[in-house]
């Protein structure tokens, strides 16, 4: 090769290698965050822009303007539906471009959930923040790792029974407080030709709602240390009397004809519409979906009643699933001081309540001012009596256990699998997630 041509070739090879290294660095699977969360500067001087990404501007917009004015910080908000936001954040976290403050799911249920990110060192330890002392103890499995708290609970939602008051009045029934009463109510409603319980399992996530509502009492309430023993390998879903009873009661309701006929063919929205129109009487769902149901009712919110699903014949045993939504601070936040100051600002008792009221939710911090509406009045006794449990999937090690529940659960409804198969599938998914 001619010397000049050789030099050109060498330069080209060097440039290509350098470009390759740069590209490889961009695509490296590791996060750019440090192992230890950086300390905020805490110099009290706030400036610049605070980047926030969450699911909705609703509620948050109450505070953005006043905070910008008070703190001298400009807020740049990004809003997207939870699933899309999770995917987007996962990519941003991996590539080191995540916003300063962002929404995270509880526990380890998704790749961008609080504890998944805490384990990676991608979010800041918030234990020393003033508001941290007001986080309910029941949230610990969802946001704490080795005693440190990694997330700010914005507001909570509960899994409850929502019913059509007119249908209940016409059938002459009252909200039940025990499982036997619940079955009696179902019988009375069925006798009037009404579908007692709307169930739209064509959207497979709906298959989690009723079991979670029952398991709060039968598993979290009756077998309080089940998840610790499960994590320690001392028990399994198959060995849990609570989970077995949960599924026997859930699938029993379908077999006994108390639910929407052909629930596997019915999507979630038409099932809710049936409650709104009075064709069905009740639906079990997270409280966050209640505004949608109220929209289907002729009498709006006034016509919609709420009660906790009993799972035993002892009313005091009843627990409800209650889970918060979270904001976390990026460990590599470019404006960490502003992010922490914003959390301090919205943690004021009247502000957490205002946010919950605006979003039709339940304040998550214990010092929040009580919100006076039916949802909050229904949930408050359970919060005060510490009879709440996280949504079950939020304490599972990954989304794969929930997938096993949804997939095999549909097959149980169809009759091609049994409850034993379902429990075994959940155990297998749990093992695979933790191995």
């Amino acid at each position, binding site marked *: 090769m001619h010397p000049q041509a050789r030099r050109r070739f060498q330069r080209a090879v060097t440039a290509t290698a350098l470009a390759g290294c740069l590209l490889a660095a961009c695509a490296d699977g590791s996060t750019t965050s440090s192992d230890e969360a950086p300390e905020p500067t805490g110099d009290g001087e706030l400036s610049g822009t605070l980047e926030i990404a969450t699911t909705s501007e609703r509620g948050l917009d109450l505070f953005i303007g006043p905070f910008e004015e008070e703190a001298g910080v400009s807020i740049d908000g990004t809003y997207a539906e939870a699933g899309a936001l999770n995917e987007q954040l996962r990519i941003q976290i991996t590539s080191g471009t995540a916003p300063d403050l962002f929404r995270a799911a509880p526990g380890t249920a998704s790749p961008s959930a609080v504890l998944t990110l805490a*384990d990676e060192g991608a979010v800041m330890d918030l234990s020393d923040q003033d508001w941290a002392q007001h986080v309910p103890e029941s949230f610990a499995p969802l946001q704490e790792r080795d005693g440190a708290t990694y997330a700010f609970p914005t507001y909570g939602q509960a899994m409850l029974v929502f019913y059509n008051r007119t249908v209940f009045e016409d059938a002459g029934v009252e909200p039940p407080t025990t499982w036997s009463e619940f079955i009696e109510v179902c019988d009375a409603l069925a006798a009037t030709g009404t579908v007692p319980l709307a169930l739209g399992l*064509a959207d497979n996530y709906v298959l989690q709602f009723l079991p979670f509502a029952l398991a709060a009492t039968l598993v979290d309430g009756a077998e309080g240390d089940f998840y610790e023993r499960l994590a320690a390998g001392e028990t399994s879903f198959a060995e849990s009397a609570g989970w077995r009873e949960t599924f026997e009661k859930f699938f029993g309701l379908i077999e006994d004809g108390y639910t929407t006929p052909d629930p596997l063919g019915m999507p979630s929205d038409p099932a809710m519409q049936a409650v709104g129109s009075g064709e069905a009487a009740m639906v079990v769902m997270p409280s966050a979906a209640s505004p949608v149901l109220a929209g289907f009712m002729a009498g709006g919110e006034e016509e919609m009643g709420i009660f906790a699903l009993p799972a035993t014949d002892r009313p005091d045993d009843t627990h409800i699933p209650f889970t918060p939504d979270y904001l976390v601070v990026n460990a590599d936040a470019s404006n960490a001081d502003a992010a922490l100051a914003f959390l301090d600002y919205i943690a004021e008792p009247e502000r957490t309540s205002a946010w919950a009221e605006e979003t039709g939710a339940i304040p998550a911090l214990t010092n929040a001012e009580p919100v006076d509406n039916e949802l909050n009045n229904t949930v408050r006794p359970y919060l005060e009596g510490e009879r709440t449990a996280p949504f079950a999937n939020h304490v599972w090690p990954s989304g794969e256990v929930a997938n096993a529940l949804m997939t095999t659960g549909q097959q149980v409804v169809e009759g091609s699998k049994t409850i034993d198969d379902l429990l075994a599938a959940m155990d297998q998914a749990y093992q695979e997630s933790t191995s």
Partner: protein
Amino acid sequence: MTVELARRGIGLRRSPVRGSTGGRRGRLHLVPQWFLIPALIFYGVVVLYPSISGAYYSFTDWKGGAAASWTGLENFQRLIEDEAAVASLRNTLLIAITLTLVQTFLGLLLALALNTAIRSRNLLRTLFFAPMMLPPIITGLLWQYIYVPGGPLDTVLSTLGLSGLSQSWLGDSDIALWSIIGSVIWHHVGMSMVIYLAGLQRIPEELYEAAALDGAGAVRRFWSVTRPLLGQATTIATALTMTASLKLFDQVFVMTGGGPGVSTQTLSLIMYKEAFVYGNYGYGSAIALILTMIVAFIVYLQMSVTRRGEVEA
């Protein structure tokens, strides 16, 4: 000036003595290739590099966060043993074969019917093509509503006195996949029709006249004139349908989410769930790699077969 240089460069390249030219003429000879560099860099960064990275990650346990570890063929082993993945592969192939055969055949029938002199042909062509203008997510939601128990489809059947045919369209494992295939055919058959219409309009009328003079009837004219001359259209229609159906995602995601159980799960759907819902990016990449290889192999095979039947008018 640039254009002129490029043009001259091309001219030089065609010169029989280009190998012996040097200096300015040699540099001019390279000008067209320089213009390709930005596009090549863009292609490399946007297509080649992610594709190679994806192939690499399919041999790792990357979960999106911590650094990936090389796991060899473990993901592919898991794929073979994963009941849901095997069901997804079976469903994907069933969807691809059925859609390719039925949609292409229906598209041909529609094209033949609407390539005649009937007065409403333009309106009908528009009507049959119109669903193609809708996003797949929207058609998925629309058909989910149509298939609701006691919904529009059951009502129509009942009105026609055919209520015995009512089914749990999306709730029965034996039927749900076919219900989805039906909705996809409704959505895409217009595309096959348009491809065949274009093919039909390229066939010279004289060939039909000559065949008629030779005493060929309608069936004979179709078999001996239309069919062979539609070879290119068939290649295009089947290749597009096959590729799209092997990647089918939106309608399945919206209408059943892969259920009941795993009865409508497809490779695209399971790849999405593994990567973006469970964070198993390594395993998701392995599924993507397998899907890519299946698409490439089947489309190559199918095009080899259909191209043999192509005849120029």
